[in-house]
Each structure stands twice: as structure tokens, then as C-alpha cells.
């Protein structure tokens, strides 16, 4: 019996996907991640099962500096050095959901950052392309993604402002860096009906999302508040 158990255990380990998200046997943060999904994401109205599942599988703590791992699943963004941040889990989930991607979507992420957002997207679609202009960040994120087994994600060091000409058009584009305008080359690389999403404001203050949808030669811009700004309805206006 012991021998069978050993064989099963070995088989189990080898048949698990190489993806680090599923290395549940040695993942001390699994419970925290589940709690994060339940209390921070589901509770705030994210219902897309693919997004919830992705958030539950990607080990966020491995994308933050070691000294901040204990805080990785907190309901806040985290500074990850070099003036960069990893977004609040809810924002990552909200951006992913509002991008409306499925397993056939080709997605471009501009600003790889820690690599976490790309890892989450890769749980939904295999066609994830990510560009980072800052060389240190690019190297760091590439290493983490490779080490954790996210080998299908295409990473590139370059200027995301111009998109990824060779593999365009995209069903969806996500800009994770702060921008003051939406780069025209990116809009051109969107398919008709494609979506581009970006966060507005700074992760440490208020933060809402902007989603641009391409319709022929026209664009519509939707500003998504999620729960990060509860509108000033009459009740809030008067409650003191």
C-alpha cells in the first residue's frame, strides 16, 4: 500500500502542470489567496468564473519582493521597488473582467511590471503578449514568469507605445502604466470591436478604469468605477 501511495504521489507531482500556480502542495499562501478572491473580489461583484479561477491560481506573493510577501494578499496595491507597484488584487480582477477576454483572444499588455497581470491573463487565454520598456523590470518579470512556468507568455523589451506590430491586431489591449493620453498606434492595432483598458489615477489614491472600444473609425470611452468610487447619490450627499 505504501508503495502505491508513493507511486501515486510521484505520478501526481509529474502530471501536475508545470505552472507554479498549481503547486498547491508547497503553497503556504493558498488559503490567503482563496480568501482574497472571496472577500475582496467576489464580494465586490466580480462574477466571471475564468477571472476568479485565474486569481485563485496565480501565486501573487511570488511577484512581490520577499519582504512584502506577507502582505501580498492584502486589499491594497504594493510598492515593488524602482517606483513600481503591483495593483490592488481587485483592480487586477476588474481590469481582466472588463477586458472581456476568452480563450481565443489575443491580448497585448503594455507595461509588464511585476508580470503578475500577464500571469493572470495567461490563465484565460494562451495568446498573451507583454512589453516592458524598463530593462530592469523586463528582466525581472521575464525571469519570474519563466521560473514559475508561464512559458507561453510572450515577453519583449521595448517601447509599448508602438504596440507589437508583428503580431497585431489584438482583441484586447491592457495598459498598466500611468499614461496621460492613449497612444494612437495602440488604437490602430485593435481589431474592430476590440477593447483597450487602462487604469486612471495613481494606485495609491483613487483609481478608476477607462475602457476604449473600437467601432470602425470611432471609439467609445467607458469609465468604470467599480467600487473604488461609490457615486455621490442623494444618500451619501446628505449623510453626515
Amino acid at each position: 500500500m505504501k508503495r502505491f501511495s508513493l507511486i501515486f504521489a510521484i505520478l501526481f507531482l509529474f502530471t501536475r502542470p508545470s505552472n507554479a500556480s498549481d503547486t498547491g502542495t508547497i503553497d503556504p499562501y493558498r488559503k490567503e489567496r482563496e480568501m482574497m478572491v472571496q472577500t475582496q473580489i467576489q464580494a465586490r461583484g466580480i462574477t466571471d468564473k475564468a477571472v476568479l479561477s485565474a486569481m485563485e491560481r496565480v501565486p501573487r506573493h511570488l511577484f512581490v519582493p520577499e519582504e512584502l510577501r506577507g502582505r501580498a494578499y492584502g486589499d491594497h496595491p504594493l510598492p515593488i521597488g524602482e517606483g513600481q507597484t503591483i495593483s490592488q488584487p481587485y483592480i487586477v480582477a476588474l481590469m481582466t473582467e472588463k477586458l472581456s477576454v476568452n480563450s481565443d483572444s489575443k491580448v497585448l499588455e503594455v507595461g509588464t511590471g511585476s508580470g503578475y497581470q500577464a500571469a493572470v491573463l495567461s490563465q484565460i487565454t494562451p495568446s498573451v503578449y507583454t512589453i516592458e520598456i524598463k530593462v530592469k523590470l523586463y528582466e525581472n518579470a521575464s525571469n519570474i514568469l519563466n521560473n514559475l512556468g508561464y512559458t507561453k507568455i510572450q515577453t519583449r523589451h521595448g517601447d509599448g507605445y508602438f504596440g507589437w506590430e508583428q503580431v497585431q491586431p489584438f482583441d484586447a489591449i491592457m495598459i498598466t502604466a500611468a499614461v496621460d493620453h492613449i497612444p494612437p498606434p495602440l488604437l490602430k492595432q485593435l481589431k474592430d470591436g476590440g477593447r483597450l483598458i487602462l487604469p486612471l489615477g495613481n494606485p495609491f489614491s483613487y483609481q478608476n478604469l477607462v475602457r476604449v472600444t473600437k467601432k470602425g473609425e470611432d471609439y467609445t470611452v467607458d469609465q468604470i468605477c467599480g467600487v473604488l468610487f461609490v457615486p455621490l447619490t442623494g444618500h451619501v450627499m446628505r449623510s453626515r
Partner: protein
Amino acid sequence: MILWTVFFLSFSSLAFEIFLTRLFSISQWNHLSFMVISIALLGFAAGGVLFSFLDGRMPGWERKWSTWIHLDILAFAFSISILFSLFILSRIPFDYFRLPFEPIQILYLFILYLVLGVAFFFCGLAIMIGYAACPEKSGSLYFASMAGSACGAAASIPLLSLFGETGAAALSALIPLIPAAGDGLKSLLQNFFHKPFLSQTKGVSLAMLTAVVILCVFAVFLFSGTNALLQIRPSPYKALSQSLQFPDSQVFQKASGIYGRVDCLQSPHLRYAPGLSLKYPSIPPTQWAAFKDGDHPLTFYETNSNTAFARSTLQYAGYVLIPNPGRVLIIQPGGGTAIPCALASGAESITVVEPHPFLAQLTQKHYRITVVSDTPRAFLTAPGPTFDVIHVENWGPSLPGTGALTQDYLLTLDAFAAYLNRLSHRGILIVSRKLRLPPADSLRLWSTAYTCLVQKGVSDPGRHILILRNWDTFVLIASGSALPDTAPLIDFANRLNFDFIFSKISVAHPVNRFNRLPEPYYHRALSELSDAYERGKPETFFNDYLIDVKPLTDERPFPDRFIKYDRIRTLYRSTGSRFYSLFMSGEIVVWVVMIEAAAISILFLLLPLSSIYRRGKKQFPSYFLFFFFVGMGFMFLEMYFVQAFTLLLGDPVVSFVAGITGILIFSGVGGRISQNLGKGAMQKSLLALTILAAISYWMLDSGIHQALRLPKMSRTVFALILLLPMGLPAGLPFPMGMRILLDGPQQRAFAWAANGCASVLTAVASVQIAIGFGISTNLLFAAASYFSAWLCIQKHVSQKGTA
């Protein structure tokens, strides 16, 4: 000897304080630089606390420590601690943004506080020893201390320009060594000629001189120059640090000075274009940027003949209403798109007002247009021509909340009145800002324009104002005359996908059309505000609204201030229940610093007090309260002038230097005069200060506004003259109290500590008072403090009188 030591130490410590403020402004954010004042004053108070506590264990300490050799040791300790603190400051991995998440950051902050406070501790110690050892010379000591500080403040301007922030800070460490070097040399020469070689004194002298030389070499090699080993770098979250991470990006020009550090960056990846339409098909023009203190980029575009870019920005909307304008005035504290817009409009002449001399020079050189280097408010107040367009490009800070303590006189009611006064009959005012949720600036600026138009006698102000937005920015357009045909503007908005937020002109244009929010929040809030104005009850709206969006006045010119403390829980909930977003606000930081300063002050005052009472040397608590109130009064005055002069002189650091230099010189002279005066003069000075502060509360504000018409240099002279009537008597109570009221060194040490603690608390409280009640209110608090001090000594005077 002691007077020179006190003079040079005070010189150095005030200069170091200013340099530290600059270093914090660069490495962190403005509202953290404000922490420096509390560090310095607490350091000062700590010396008094230590000796009032040790008095029983070290009898005669004041005589022992007032010898030249001990004073030189203190000067050395001061110098070394400055150099050490600079080293720590440049190396410690303190990250303000990690503070809420990483407990070790609290330790780093504590270490910074401690290390930076040490130098001020030694300085405070030397001055306090002077008062304790030579109470009869209190007036002269006070003069030496104040004159030294004033000279330090004044000297900081050339030192910053010549040596940069770190070099100047390092140099400030060497200044107090001047008397020590003199003593060493004198002693060395005397011993060499008259005493056997290598006597003890000579050894000490040699050691001192050697130490001076080593410190000089150390400082020069490590801290100054462009290739310095230790440099203070801007926070990695600042725009400059972010841009420098792009490939092929480099700083090609740098300038330091009292107005701030400017770094000029060249990068093929700079593409600044706020307000740009999604319909713009190309990439923004080639550009480079000048960053002030590592942030607030001012972008310079290669405009050539390409006008399509500027014409595709939201801020160009104003020019659509007034084609081919004559004279255009541009005020741009940050941004840079205003000039391309003006150029694209075909304006006959363009004038830019830029208060920063170096940025003015850069602007003139790049665009070859007229650039006036002065504060915009002074330019607008002075007589001059009218303009067809005045464009205020002010996007606000890159991180909302970090500018909460920044005084900005460009968006107040008084500023709008000045803009409207300088518009031609068909003139248009354009103000471009970032959008925020909950709606904030847009409401405040609309109501500011509305109120000004009402004051100008316009019958239907709503028809003179328009607000448009894209997804990230908004532009307010206002005019003294009814806005012209808006059809071209509607076409412009439709073509470039911009939305009207609110307009009372009959524009058939749906809101929330191209840039859709779940609900038209901005439009709804502005409609409610407009209705409130029409009903004659705008106050109802302002009271009900979640945040404070009342129009700003020059009395409370803090455009980034929005928090209503009685609504903070609702605000917390409505912005996603995220503590850290509130923590980033400068308004909250002031409270944190104040609580921390109050806690330390209470500790500082209670500990030695118990020691004093244990030893049976009872002194009237009212005496200590006297010194506490005198400290408060002085600091309220000082802070008032520093804040009020920002309008007059245009820059907070310049006004800090001018205000501090002036008040310290005059109060120093007052202290010197007090040397020969009796206690009657002390009482009279307190009453005079009470009356003068109260009168000034009513009168100074209008005087300062009138003085805006004067040329730049005359305004500085005027500012210094304003300081004279209160500065002079403000120098009397403290040294006279030290000389007349107190009996022993322990009491003097404790009085020194009480005075220092009061100064710390007041420095922090005055900012909160200015934000909450207005800058002038500090004068009322000053009057109340001096009157309280007067009350405190009544008992003493009557007792002495009876005796």
C-alpha cells in the same frame, strides 16, 4: 567666545534646516519636507530637557560646559552629526509609499528623525548653556543666536546656487568650526612660543585642527560636485525617476537654487500630451522636459509648423471661441501644452509669466517668445495691457493629496478676479486641470468663476462659463462678456470626441456622450451647484457635499485641500474603503506629525518637571508657561509671515528665507536692546505684541495685496519693512525672561525646553490653522499667546512689587 560659537552654530543650523527642506522636497514630497521644522525644533528642545534632568547629578555643568574647549567640542559634534546625517539620509532605504505596508519603514523614519535631530540637539545645547552660564548676557546671546540664524537663512540662497543641495548642506557642517579652528590656531601659536612642546592644550589644539582639515576634505570630496559619491536622488515614484528608466534617457542640464532643482531630460520616449483627443492619428511632437524637484514636468515641444497636435487637445477649446487672438497670456506652473496651443491659434503675441528664473530662461530660449520672470499674481495686478486669451495650465500634482499643503494663488477668487480684469472685451480665460472623482476641482473652479462674475456685476454668470472634458482632464472657459457663438465649439467637441460637462448656454449637446461614466456624475453635481446658486443658497450645496469644494480665497489658497473632517468616514467609504488613499494626503500627514510632536513635547516637559520638583526647587509653573506662550507667539508670527509672503514673493521657499531672515534680524536687535531694559519693558513688549498682532489681523492682508503692484525688489523690501514693527518687540520677552524671571541653570534649561516644544507644536499647528481657518488666523493665535504670556508674569511682578 560663547557669542561667536552661538552665532556660527545658529548660522549653520538654520542653513542646514533650509537645505534639509530642499533635500526632502527632492527625495520625497513637499509635505514631508515640512517635517524638517519639527525635527529641528525638537532637537533644540532636547538639549534643555537633558540638562534640566541632569542638573542634580552634574552640579556646575553650565560653568564647565561654557569653557571654549567644551564649546568647540560641541561645534565638532554638530559638524560630525550633520555629515553623518547626510550620509544616512542618502543611504537609508526609506520609502514613504511602503510606510503603511512595511513595518521596517517606521524604523527607517524613526532613524531619520533621530539622526537628523542630533545636529540640532548640539546647537540647542550650546545656546542653552550660554543662557544658563551667563544669564546676565541673555540679550546678547539672543542677538547672537538670531543674527546667526538670519545670516544662515540669507546665505542659503547663494550657497544653494553655488554648491547644490548636498554640497551646501555639507558646507553648513563646516561653518561652526570657524571659531574652533581659530581657537586651535591661537592656542597652538601661544604654546609653540611660550610653553613646552606637546603640552596637553597643544595636543588638543592639534587634534582640533587636524579634525577640521579632515572634515573639510571629507565634506568636499564626498558631498559636492557633479560626480559626488553621495547624492540625494528623487523618489523613484517621481516623474523624473520614472522617465530616467527609459532607454537612452539622460539629464542634459541641471540647475539648483532657492527656487528648486531643475533637471532637463532628453528622451526619445517622452510623450506628454494631456487632453489629447483619441481622434489624433499620429504621435505627439518631439519633446524634452524640465522637472522641478524631480517632478512637475514642464514640457517643451518641437512645434515647427505642426499645429494639428495642439489643435487636437481639449485645452484648445478656448481658442475655438476666439479665432486669431491678439495678445495671449500663458501661466503654466506645470504642463507645457499651452504654448503650442497659443502658437497653433496664430496669436499675434504670446507672453509667458514664469516665476522660476531658470525655467523662464529655458522657455524664452526654446520658443523665442516674451517671457516675464515674475510671480503671475504680481504681473496681473501691475498695470499692463489686456489679453484676448489668458490660459492657466495647471494640471495639479502627479499624486493627488501630495500638494495639500502647497499654497497656490492661481486658482483663488482673487486670482480669477485678476484674470477677468486683464481680459479684453472679447477675452477668454482657459483653465485646464485633471479630472477627479468625486467631482472636486471642476465644481470649485466653476463656482469660483461664477462668484467672480457676480462680483463683477454680470447678470447671468452661468452663461459666461463652460466646462468640457475628455476621460482624464477638463477645461474651464470663462469670459467677462457673454460667450460668443458656440456652434464652432460644439463642432470641435463632436469632431474630437470631447464632452460638455455643463453649460447654461443653449447648446444642444448631450453630456456623458463620448466619455461615458456609469452616470453623469460631473454634470449632475454641477447642475445641482448651479441650481443652488440660482436659488441663492450655494451654502446649502457646499454644506451637503461630501468634500470641501467652496471657492478658494487668498486666505486659504490650498487647491488640493478637500477633506471635511466631519465627513471623513463617508469619504473613506465612498472612495473604496481604502485607508492608504487617505494616508497619502498631506492633510492627514499634518495631523500625524502634530500628534507625534505633541506626544514628544509632553514627554519632554513632564520628565524634567518631575526632577525639578523632586529636588525641591519649586518655581512657579506660570514661569514655564510664560516661556511656552512666548515660544508659541513667536512661532505663530513667524509662520504667518512665511505663509503670507508666498503671495508677495511667489515661492514658498523664497518667502521662508525672506520671512525668517527679516524676523530673526529684527528680533535679534530687540534682544540686544533688551539687555539694558527692566521688567516693565517686558510687560509692555508683550502687550504691544498682542495689540500689534490683533491690528495686523485686520490690516496686513490688504497691505500685502496692494504691494503686489510693486516691482519684484520693492516687494522684498516691503516684506522686510512689514516685519519690523512686530519683529523688534518679539525679541524682548524671551531673553528678558531668562534674565529676570529665573533663578538657576536648571530652570533656564527647562524654560529653554518649554520654549522649544511650544515652537514645534506651533509650527505644525499653524499649518493646520492656515488650511482650516485661514493664514491670518495665525495672527490671532499669536496675539492670544502673547497675552497669555503677559498674564503668566502678572503674579511675579506683583510679588516683586510687594517685596
